C-alpha cells in the first residue's frame, strides 16, 4: 500500500497543489492548438508550440523531466551528469544555444525568391525602416527597467522574425526566451489583425490607390551573384549577423545555382520541417508556469505589441518619405511589409490594396521589402549581439 500511495504522490494531480498555475498554462496551450486547428492561424507554429506548452506544464514534481533539467549540461562551473538530464533538455539544446534558428534560415533562404527585390532595389530601404521599431522598443524596455541585454532581446520582437527573436534571446537573455518566443510568434500570427488599422490610419485613399510599374526582368546570373555578394558585404560590415545571414544566403545560393537542387529541396522541406517541429515544441515546453507567468512576461507582451506597431508605422512613413523624392511613386502600403513576417505581411498589403482597387496587384512589390526585412532584422540582431554580449 505504501508503494501505491507513493505512486499517487508522484502523479500530476498530486503535484498540482504545488503548481496550480500550471492549469492556466495548459489552458493557454489548448487555446493555441484551437487557434491552429479551428482558425488555421499559423498552424505550423502554433500547434507545436501549443502542444509543447501542454507537455511543459504537466506538474511532474521532482522527476526532472523539463527543459530546464539539464543535469549541468553547458552550465559554467558545473559537472555534467548525463543521468540527470531530461530528454526535453537535450531537444532544447538547439534553442538554448541558438542552433535551430540558423537552420531555419537555411530553409528560408532555399525557398525565398529575391527577384522582386533585385528588380527594384530601393525597396530594400523600406525593410531597413521597419527595423527602427526594434530599437525604439529597446529603449522602451530600458525605460521599463529591463537590463540592456534583456531590452535588446525584447526589442527584436519588432523585427517580426521568430527565429531571430529566439536566436538573440538565447544569446542575450535566455531567461526570457519563453515569453519572447511566444510573444514573437503570437504577433506574427496576428499580422492580419494588427497591421491593417495602422495602414489605414497612416495612408490616404489616394496613396492606397497608387499603382506601381511592373518590375524589370532579372537574369539568373544576377540571382546567383546576389547571395554571394550580399553575404560578403553584410558579413564584413556586421559580423554579428553571420550565423543568420550566412545561412540565409547559403540556402538561397543552393536554390539559385540550380546545381544543388537536392540540397535546396532538403533545406526547404525536410530540414526546415524537422527543425520547426523541434523548435516550436521545445519553446512551448519552456513556458513552465513558474518561469512564464510573471509581470516581466506581461511587460514583454505589451512591448512586443508596441514593437510590431512601431515597425509597421516606420515602414509606411518611410515609403511616404521616399515618395517626396521619387518620380515613380511607391504605394506606401508596401512599407508595412518591411516587417519580416514573410509572406503574411505582403499578403496583408496586397489584400488592403485590393480592397481599394481590385485591379491593383501589390503582392509582388510588397515581397521586396518583406524579404529585405528578413535581412534587416538579422543585421539588427547581429549589431545588438555584438555590442551587448
Amino acid at each position, binding site marked *: 500500500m505504501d508503494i501505491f500511495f507513493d505512486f499517487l504522490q508522484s502523479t500530476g494531480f498530486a503535484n498540482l497543489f504545488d503548481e496550480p498555475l500550471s492549469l492556466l498554462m495548459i489552458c493557454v496551450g489548448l487555446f493555441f492548438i484551437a487557434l491552429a486547428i479551428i482558425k488555421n492561424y499559423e498552424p505550423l507554429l502554433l500547434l507545436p508550440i501549443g502542444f509543447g506548452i501542454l507537455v511543459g506544464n504537466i506538474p511532474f514534481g521532482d522527476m526532472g523531466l523539463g527543459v530546464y533539467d539539464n543535469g549541468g549540461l553547458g552550465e559554467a562551473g558545473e559537472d555534467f551528469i548525463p543521468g540527470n538530464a531530461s530528454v526535453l533538455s537535450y531537444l532544447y539544446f538547439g534553442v538554448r544555444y541558438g542552433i535551430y534558428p540558423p537552420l531555419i534560415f537555411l530553409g528560408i533562404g532555399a525557398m*525565398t525568391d529575391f527577384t522582386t527585390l533585385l528588380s527594384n532595389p*530601393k525597396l530594400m530601404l523600406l525593410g531597413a525602416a521597419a527595423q527602427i521599431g526594434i530599437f525604439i522598443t529597446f529603449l522602451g524596455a*530600458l525605460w521599463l527597467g529591463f537590463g540592456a541585454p534583456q531590452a535588446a532581446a525584447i526589442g527584436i520582437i519588432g523585427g517580426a522574425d521568430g527565429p531571430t527573436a529566439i536566436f538573440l534571446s538565447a544569446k542575450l537573455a535566455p531567461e526570457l526566451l519563453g515569453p519572447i518566443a511566444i510573444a514573437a510568434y503570437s504577433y506574427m500570427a496576428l499580422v492580419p489583425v494588427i497591421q491593417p488599422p495602422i495602414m489605414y490610419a497612416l495612408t490616404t485613399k489616394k496613396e492606397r490607390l497608387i499603382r506601381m510599374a*511592373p518590375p524589370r*526582368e532579372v537574369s539568373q546570373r544576377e540571382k546567383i551573384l546576389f547571395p554571394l555578394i550580399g553575404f560578403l558585404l553584410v558579413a564584413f560590415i556586421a559580423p554579428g549577423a553571420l550565423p543568420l545571414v550566412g545561412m540565409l544566403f547559403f540556402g538561397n545560393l543552393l536554390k539559385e545555382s540550380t546545381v544543388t537542387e537536392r540540397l535546396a529541396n532538403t533545406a526547404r522541406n525536410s530540414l526546415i520541417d524537422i527543425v*520547426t517541429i523541434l523548435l516550436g515544441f521545445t519553446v512551448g515546453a519552456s513556458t513552465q508556469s513558474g518561469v512564464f507567468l510573471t509581470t516581466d512576461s506581461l511587460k514583454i507582451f505589451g512591448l512586443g505589441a508596441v514593437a510590431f506597431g512601431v515597425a509597421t508605422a516606420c515602414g509606411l512613413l518611410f515609403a511616404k518619405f521616399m515618395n517626396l523624392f521619387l518620380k515613380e511613386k511607391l504605394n506606401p502600403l508596401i512599407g508595412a511589409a518591411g516587417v519580416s513576417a514573410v509572406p503574411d505581411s505582403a*499578403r496583408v498589403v496586397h489584400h488592403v490594396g485590393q480592397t481599394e482597387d481590385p485591379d491593383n496587384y501589390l503582392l*509582388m512589390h510588397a*515581397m521586396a521589402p518583406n524579404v529585405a526585412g528578413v535581412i534587416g532584422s538579422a543585421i539588427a540582431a547581429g*549589431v545588438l549581439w555584438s555590442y551587448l554580449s
Partner: protein
Amino acid sequence: MATFTVLAQLAADPAKSGLDVAIDNIPLAITGILIVFTVLSLLALTIKILPKIVDLTEPWLPQGHGHHGHGGHGGASKGAAAAAAGVAAVAGAGSVMAGTPFGTDAAEDQRVAAAIAAVMHKQRQGQ
C-alpha cells in the same frame, strides 16, 4: 527567479531611473539604426550595379533564363511573368517563418495561381 525590473537597475546604479538608462542608450539605438540602414543601402547599391557585374562575369557563369522568360518579349509578358513569379514565390513560401512548404496539391495550386496572375496582368497591360 531573478527579476529585471527597476529594482535591478537601481541596485546597479541607485541614482538612475529607467528613463535615465533609456536616454543613456539612445546613441546605441541610433548607431544600430544607422548600421542597418547603411548595410541595406549598400546592398541596394550593389544590386543596382549587379547587371554590370553580371556582364563582367559573362565568360564564366552559365547562360540561364530568369523566371521572367527571355529578353525581347514585350513589357506585358515581362510584367505578367513577374506577377506570376511573385505569386508563385509567395505561394511557395507559405508560412515562411514556420518554414514548411506544401504537398503535391499545393504545388498544383501554385501553378494555377501563377497562371491566373499572368493572364490577369496581361489583360491589364493590354487595357
